[in-house]
């Protein structure tokens, strides 16, 4: 298998897996969380590269530590989830930059950790992404009903006697695993596009929860293919090309859904729609 075919395979597997988990991210509104997670895996990846251990392993360990810190800060009154994510996010980047400067001669280019380098993925990277994708499908197939219930009616879910944290831990674990496995393709900065865009696009054109879970991985894989092809055709970096392809899918879906709404929407009023609605 040549490097290009390998890159295509990686793009398909990672794109599909990220798209599938991304459906959970978007439906449960964990985008900022996922974004902080993608950024904060960076110091783990740098440390792993410096220590000579597997980069995904380092990123995974870092993500566990980071999730714990974020959960702790988010629970404090007057701080909250956004503050937690912001601090962890920038702290992660600063720590990564300091590590990188303090440990010269890293075998891995830091840029590849930040914006990805799909042309140099290993078989192990692809295998990891495939395992994560399959695990995500199996877990969602097994617990899908409960995840859907707790997503759309958290109060009812608690009232029905279920505890929320196992579902939350399961979903957050899947998000972390997905982030770690997408790093080789798109890097820490751009991973959120590959995770969120396919699902957000799917949600605009597909109505059902289940439908989004099917459509998002397809869009993710397609984005991967288009991105790698564009990267070769125009001689540009592959990671950003994949992220842009995923965004393109989202833009098309957005345009389509807006067009569909037009006929009966009438004259749109340039006032504070969301706020007006509440005032009313």
């Amino acid at each position, binding site marked *: 298998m040549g490097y290009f075919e390998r890159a295509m395979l990686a793009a398909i597997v990672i794109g599909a897996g990220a798209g599938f988990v991304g459906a959970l*991210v*978007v439906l449960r*509104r*964990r*985008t*900022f*969380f996922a*974004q902080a997670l993608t*950024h904060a895996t960076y110091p783990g990846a740098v440390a792993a590269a410096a220590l000579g251990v597997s980069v995904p392993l380092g990123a995974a360990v870092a993500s566990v530590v980071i999730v714990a810190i974020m959960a702790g*800060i*988010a*629970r*404090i*009154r*007057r*701080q*909250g*989830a*956004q*503050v937690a*994510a*912001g*601090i962890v*996010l*920038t*702290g992660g*980047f*600063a*720590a990564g*930059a*300091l590590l990188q*400067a*303090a440990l010269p001669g890293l075998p891995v280019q830091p*840029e590849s950790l*930040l*914006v990805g380098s799909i042309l140099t993925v290993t078989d192990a990277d692809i295998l990891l992404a495939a395992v994560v994708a399959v695990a995500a499908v199996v877990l969602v197939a097994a617990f899908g009903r409960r995840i859907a219930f707790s997503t759309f009616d958290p109060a009812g879910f608690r009232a029905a006697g279920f505890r929320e944290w196992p579902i939350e831990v399961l979903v957050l674990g899947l998000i972390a695993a997905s982030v770690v496995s997408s790093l080789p393709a798109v890097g820490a*900065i*751009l991973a*959120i*596009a590959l995770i*969120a*865009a396919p*699902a*957000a696009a799917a949600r605009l054109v597909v109505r059902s929860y289940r439908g989004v879970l099917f459509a998002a991985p397809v869009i993710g894989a397609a984005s991967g293919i288009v991105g790698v092809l564009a990267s070769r055709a125009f001689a*540009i*970096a592959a*990671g*950003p*090309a994949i*992220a*842009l392809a*995923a*965004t393109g899918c*989202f833009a098309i879906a*957005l345009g389509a859904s807006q067009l569909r709404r037009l006929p009966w929407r009438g004259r749109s009023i340039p006032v*504070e*729609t*969301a*706020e007006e609605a*509440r005032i009313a």
Partner: protein
Amino acid sequence: MDLWDSLFTAFELPFMARALGVMLVLAVVAGVVGVLVNLRGLEFISDGLTHAVFPGLAIGLAVGGTAGLLPGAAIAALGAAVILTWLSRAGVASDAAIAIVLTATFSVGVIVVSRSDDYAGQLEALLFGRVLTIPPAEVVPLVVVSLVALGAVLLTLKQQLFRAFDARASRAAGDRGFVLDLVLNGAVALVVVAAASTVGTLLVLALLIVPGAVARLATDRLWLLFPVAGGFAALGAWLGLAAGYGASVGGGVDLPAGATVVAAFVVGYALVLVVAWAAGRVTTGRSSGRAAGRADRAGAAPAAARTAGSAR
């Protein structure tokens, strides 16, 4: 080489003095603006602006060299501030949509940089800043940009606080929510512009978020928030620069100055958190009122409000 040298003597060097001067102005302005970011729950929008500025920096660098950085970033940031304000008001965009679009702009920036000769070096400079190598000619523009942001916020401060506390009543009192949001997001954008060319795009967010968060931990008195945030930010900037200098001169490790400043901020936050916890000020709870209150203020950030609310 001792502690005294790092903390004081080091800043007799012209480039260190320049870095300190710029960082102090920037830190105080970011601290004040950051309090409003905290009270309005605009962390997510701020993160968005840092991403949106990146292609502006990249294109500015490609077109005009380092002198093109500031204008490029300013154009991108103000454009993004207008678009983000509009998007979040119209209710068109979810947090996911914002994250996606902004990551796309970041991708554009990386692609622009990737076509240059010194891809890795330039990318790193844009991401992690170059506070120690600010040319003297750029000091004044950076300070001016920061002060414009400060002025915009101070001018509308009481209305901004009113809107942050009770958006509906603020509207009923005749305040134009869109204008207030635009001014605040514009000020955040200007801080991002000034900070992006010093501490780098990836670290800007720390300047905006950490001082505000520290102030919220330290006090419940409205008018104390601003001096606490500004003072913390100034202290963090000074200690961070001194630490970077100490490490590179004393320890022979060449640490990026932007990263040491942000590390000082984060360590400072952790210390304040511990002190607040020891003083019994750290309480946990569902705090659903905060989430609900933010949702009501969604004119600025419906997405952010949902993130804050749902992550509990």
